[in-house]
């Protein structure tokens, strides 16, 4: 953790990982707001947490498996109705393979 404010380059990198396209103005604004929030989080460093196990979920439940039986599914037509661009029974997307595939 660091008190330093995030550089515009770093904010752009995080934005790209977040799949967000930001203007220069947004980069500056979010950068300083995020720096303030991350600075506030410094207080967690005061704590001695050496012997504490992380807890991601209060339930403490492990994976629960359902019986491998077909259940009720949403019909394809219902999903086509909410998709932005379709060629039923498919959803249309720009070219996936090659440059810019986003993979």
């Amino acid at each position, binding site marked *: *953790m660091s008190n330093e404010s995030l550089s515009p380059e770093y*904010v752009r990198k*995080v*934005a*790209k*990982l*977040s*799949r*967000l*396209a*930001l203007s220069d103005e*947004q980069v500056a604004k*979010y950068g300083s*707001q*995020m720096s*303030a*929030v*991350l600075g*506030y*989080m410094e*207080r*967690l*460093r005061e*704590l001695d*947490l050496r012997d*504490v*196990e*992380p*807890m*991601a*979920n*209060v*339930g403490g*439940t492990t994976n*629960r498996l*359902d019986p491998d039986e077909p259940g009720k599914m*949403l019909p394809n037509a*219902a*999903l086509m*109705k*909410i*998709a*932005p*661009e379709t060629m039923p029974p498919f*959803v249309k*997307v*720009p*070219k*996936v393979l090659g*440059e*810019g*595939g*986003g993979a």
Partner: protein
Amino acid sequence: MSADRIGPSLAAAERLQPTLNAFVQLFDAEKARNASSGSGPLVGTPVALKDNLCLSWGKTTCASNMLRHYESPYTATAVQKLLDAGAAVIGKTNLDEFAMGSSCENSCFGPTFNPWDTTRVPGGSSGGSAAAVAAGIVPLALGSDTGGSVRQPASHCGIVGVKPTYGRVSRYGLVAYASSLDQIGTLTPTVGEAAAALSVICGHDPLDTTSSREPVPDLVSALEQPVEGLRLAVPRQARNQANHPEVARVFEETIAEYRRLGATIVDVELPLLDHGIAAYYIVAPAEASSNLARFDGIRYGHRAALGPGEDLFDLYCKSRSEGFGPEVQRRIMLGTHVLSSGYYDAYYNTALKVRRRMKQDFDRIFADCQAVLMPASPSPAFKVGEKTSDPLAMYLEDVYTVTINLAGLPAMSIPAGFASVEGKQLPVGVQLVSPAFDEARMLRIARMFERATPWHTRRPA
């Protein structure tokens, strides 16, 4: 046959909409009646739903341009249970976009206003639900509480807001924000109405793998029975905080009232209370960044128009930048940052350790006490626009509520008095926190106070 309550409720909603902006959508009375089972414990009860709860008719927008035109093909389990119990859904209420906020101002439909003072926020993120109940439009609204989003608006609007134990109510059909913290809750004028609604919506659901199999006891019939030998914990840190003086006064008067009712007040330590915000604003954005990755402009939600030469990656980025408002973008980026390699241990893993310690602190208190009493919010409702430019100041609103979600405990806000601020009387709530799955006793403890005080009977002019 009892008098129709659906028509008058819709009429009130429409009349107050220009003043409060509590709703993002209202249904017609016939649709509301027809969609209800027409019988059951909540028969004829008009209810409002926070618009992050899926309903198989109308729109489910999350107050986001991303889902502005989204029509859910299915209904949330908790909502279906209300319909099966005879309730009628009259409309969907405003919220902070994707439930991210503490003021109900981060909405693509504009802010909701507090019925007690329309220059002030109703709290958030379930602000529309709280305003609708406080204004007398509906006797029950559902909200969701990830870090206080039911309890804080309930406090600011002078009503009862209950966040059940994590896993008590199915999250199936609740649009996910932070899945290990999210829980559906109730907003009602009184404790009794909360108990009746919770009796309906609690319980196991095979469609939510984190839904608990713990049996749900009768929440209603024992409600009037006071808790004998009640030991109520008051954290020292909740008194030493920089509370608004009027909140501090109401809190001390509440403690005195419980003492008068025979409770033993036990001073306890909640050493990590001040670290709750820091831990929460790591864990919640981390989970949000992952949950909201699904909104990519492909299968549903907003899809941006592509220019020449733009590709699939641009489609993701443009759709998300156009669809999400600033607070959602900020939290996604915060979450992405704290989970990124090199920072994971310093932030996310540290927050998860703090989370365990918080849970242990509560366990220690509950070995000796039946509930914890603390403020629901450090201040009464603030002015619209007062905190919108400073996200950190807004986050600090949640100091008393976020810790409870991290620990997965049930908690509720109850009306406890009024703050005199700039010549206005603003409601102030206090919060009760109970051991996991102990909602029945928590409601009884709340009812003891409610029966002895007039605060829940006051309504805005």
